[in-house]
């Protein structure tokens, strides 16, 4: 069998920390090969070794059978290895073509030959079905399109081997499907792909083989056709993982959150939430399904008081809370796990302990007569860190130093501990690995079982289907349908999210 890339017994050490411990990865020509592992398992390190950003401390790399020394990314480029980064490296004010040729501009008489470049970009785009407009400005195109520009960048530089670093993390379900088609087209044209991911569904759907790593060690390589998501998940995490979160039927109580005819405008003054009606009862989890940008963010920010709404009514336990300040709303009994944990959820430069009292610091026992009681604050922090399994060296460590999953656990601990009647969770598991996702889902269901109302917003249909008791589909700022997760399919939800009307009868508010 011919391998285009062979990474044999790669070892990479940082200080005392072994990031890669004798990992072997062999990529066949024309296959899509998944590299699977939890956050921090060493996937990125391994790929950075291949891309020449790190030098391995042991093992060898062979490209097309020849032993090579990839000293820097330029060498990787010359060997035909290209990387599609998770965080795009594009100049917003440049056009697609200008971004693609950046660093290897074709010139004619000392000037950039932009026409020739545009022609080449158009040809490449058509060949792989990317449908990218070479003259569009980056700032004007969608995230999915920007990712295709990144793909074109590597192809333009003649890459045969493409590394995709968590490419679906930033995409909508539709864009993910399109990306999968693109990847298949690339392989048909003779390219080979390494896909870094921790999403099992994507691996099952698109990959030929998968290499699993756990805590820096290579666990093994499997043929995707001979495995299943459960096996992959337990290989990745090192224990049994339950996808279908176990839960009892909900004991639905009185309405906790009642929204009527709510209208919210976004920052540009455009109506984002349009006469929306929604009720969440005690003891149930209502999931809001929808494509990003249909008013979810504005809805949540209006409920929590982060932005002002135009008209309508928001009641919590019968009390009108619309356009109160965030503090008044918090004190009425609303917990909020924000969508962007770095922007809203944490003060990253505060110790994790001080972050645990972000909404309660002014109350006893954390503050007495205006003076902070650090003993009470850090006692609380230690209790939450233990209870919610936040892995941190200690409670004095800055929140910035924690991994995404542990930051999220800290936020959830803080919000749940305040024991709010309504818990709003916006994208609570974005970017997290299966272990952390399982933990967070359990906690949300625990709140529900304690008789609290939970409002979950997520772009992951699996999560919505799995955790919710009722699903409210949002489209262009309105709840267009309310469905029972047990009686619906992803296809039906996908159609509703895309704006098509419900065919069967159902409850619609």
């Amino acid at each position, binding site marked *: 069998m011919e391998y285009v890339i062979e990474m044999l017994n790669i070892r990479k050490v940082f200080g005392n920390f072994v990031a890669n411990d004798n990992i072997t990865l062999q990529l066949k020509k024309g296959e899509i090969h998944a590299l699977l592992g939890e956050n921090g398992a060493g996937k990125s390190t391994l790929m950075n070794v291949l891309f020449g950003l790190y030098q391995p401390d042991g093992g060898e790399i062979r490209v097309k059978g020849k032993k090579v020394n990839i000293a820097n990314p330029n060498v990787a480029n010359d060997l035909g290895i290209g990387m599609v980064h998770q965080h795009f490296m594009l100049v917003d004010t440049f056009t697609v073509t200008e971004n693609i040729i950046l660093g290897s501009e074709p010139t004619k008489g000392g000037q950039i030959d932009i026409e020739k470049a545009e022609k080449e970009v158009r040809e490449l785009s058509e060949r792989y079905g990317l449908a990218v407009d070479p003259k569009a400005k980056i700032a004007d195109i969608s995230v999915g399109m920007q990712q295709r520009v990144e793909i074109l960048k590597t192809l333009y530089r003649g890459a045969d081997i493409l590394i995709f670093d968590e490419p679906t993390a930033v995409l909508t379900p539709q864009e993910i499907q399109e990306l999968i088609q693109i990847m298949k087209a690339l392989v048909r044209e003779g390219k080979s792909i390494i896909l870094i991911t921790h999403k099992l569904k994507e691996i099952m759907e698109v990959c030929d083989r998968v290499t699993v790593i756990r805590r820096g060690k290579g666990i093994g390589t499997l043929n995707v056709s001979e495995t299943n998501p459960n096996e992959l998940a337990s290989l990745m995490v090192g224990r049994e993982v339950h996808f279908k979160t176990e839960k009892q039927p909900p004991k639905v109580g009185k309405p906790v959150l009642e929204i009527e005819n709510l209208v919210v405008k976004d920052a540009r003054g455009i109506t984002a939430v349009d006469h929306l009606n929604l009720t969440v009862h005690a003891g149930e989890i209502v999931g809001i399904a929808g494509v990003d940008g249909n008013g979810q963010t504005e809805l949540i920010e209006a409920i929590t008081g982060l932005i002002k709404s135009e008209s309508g009514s928001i009641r919590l336990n019968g009390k009108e809370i619309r356009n109160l300040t*965030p503090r008044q709303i918090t004190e009425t009994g609303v917990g909020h796990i924000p969508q962007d944990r770095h922007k*809203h959820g944490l003060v990253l430069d505060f110790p994790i302990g001080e972050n645990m009292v972000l909404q309660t*610091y002014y109350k006893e026992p954390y503050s007495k007569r205006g*003076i902070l009681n650090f003993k009470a604050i850090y006692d609380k922090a230690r209790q939450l860190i233990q209870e919610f399994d936040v892995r941190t060296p200690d409670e004095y460590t800055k929140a910035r130093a924690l991994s995404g999953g542990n930051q999220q656990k800290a936020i959830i601990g803080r919000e749940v501990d305040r024991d709010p009647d309504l818990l709003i969770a916006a994208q609570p598991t974005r970017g997290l690995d299966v272990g952390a996702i399982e933990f967070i889902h359990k906690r949300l269901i625990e709140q529900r079982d304690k008789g609290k109302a939970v409002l979950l917003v997520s772009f992951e249909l699996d999560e919505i289907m799995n955790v919710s008791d009722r699903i409210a589909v949002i489209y262009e700022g309105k709840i267009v349908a309310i469905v029972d997760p047990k009686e619906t399919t992803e296809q039906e939800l996908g159609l509703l999210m895309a704006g098509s009307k419900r065919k069967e009868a159902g409850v619609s508010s």
Partner: protein
Amino acid sequence: MSENRLTNILVPVFAVILGIIAGAIVMIVSGYDPIAGYSALLYGAFGDRYYIGETIRQVTPYILAGLAVAFAFRTGLFNIGVEGQLIVGWLAAVWVGVAFELPKVIHLPLAIFAAAAAGALWGFIPGFLKARFRVHEVIVTIMMNYIALYVSNAVIRSVLSDQGFKSEKIHPSASLRSEFLQSLTDYSTLHYGIIISLIAAVVMWFLLEKTTTGYELRAVGFNQHASHYAGMNVNRNIILAMVISGAFAGIAGAMEGLGTFENVSVKAGFTGVGFDGIAVALLGGNNAFGIILAAVLFGALKVGALEMPSAADVPTELVDIVIALIIFFVASSYLIRLVLTRFKKEGK
């Protein structure tokens, strides 16, 4: 953690050493004797009791100006207006000192309070404009400096004197001067202000690190979005930070008006103390204790420099060059950090 703290201390120390070495090179190149120059500087700053008194007197407003800059900075604001806040504080303190005749226990605190209030008002305006209209505080505070300078000069000419160049001397009941401290230091101009500035440093540390208000101010400084999410009033905290910062600056002015000069005179330009406060805060790592050390250094350099022309024929401008070089090296602390980590690696 402790290793990090060590680096935080080592960086400014190295910056100072590098600045002194670079200053020596400048002296050699210009044909002066650096050893004689620095000996004169050292003697001029700490050589006898008189010089020590003068140095401490100079350190006093530097501490307060440094605290003012640092306080705003910790809340995410860049207060370039310390100079202007200092000038209005100076004016207000002398005004109260001249206009009233009261028992010392009332008069002196009243004069200092007036200075703090004037500085606070001068800080409130840019704070309010930032909170209400998102006007950048750097622009406003720079302009407020000029307003302070010329308004103060106009008031001195037309209100505090009869078209003269300086006000009357303040009543002794408002003075910070101390015969005891003067006799201790061979009749230097040392006054009680140093005690006030040290208390102010403790107040700043306590306020920021130990109180609920300080928690909010720091949170807003690091992340306004998260503070808003947590229910804090971001705009109120921005204004509050500028008001407190301005109050520290105003008290710095009171030190000059009630202690060093006991009057206020028409100024041709800025005093420079407010701007030096930026450097003091930077060198002191925006930390109350660090600011005291940095202020001592700056005070010693300023006062010691006066001895350099007579004792070593070195022009005082060279001291300004050394100070500038130190600031340069502190600002490029990234470079020093890089060298330090390199050394540590090789040591292993």
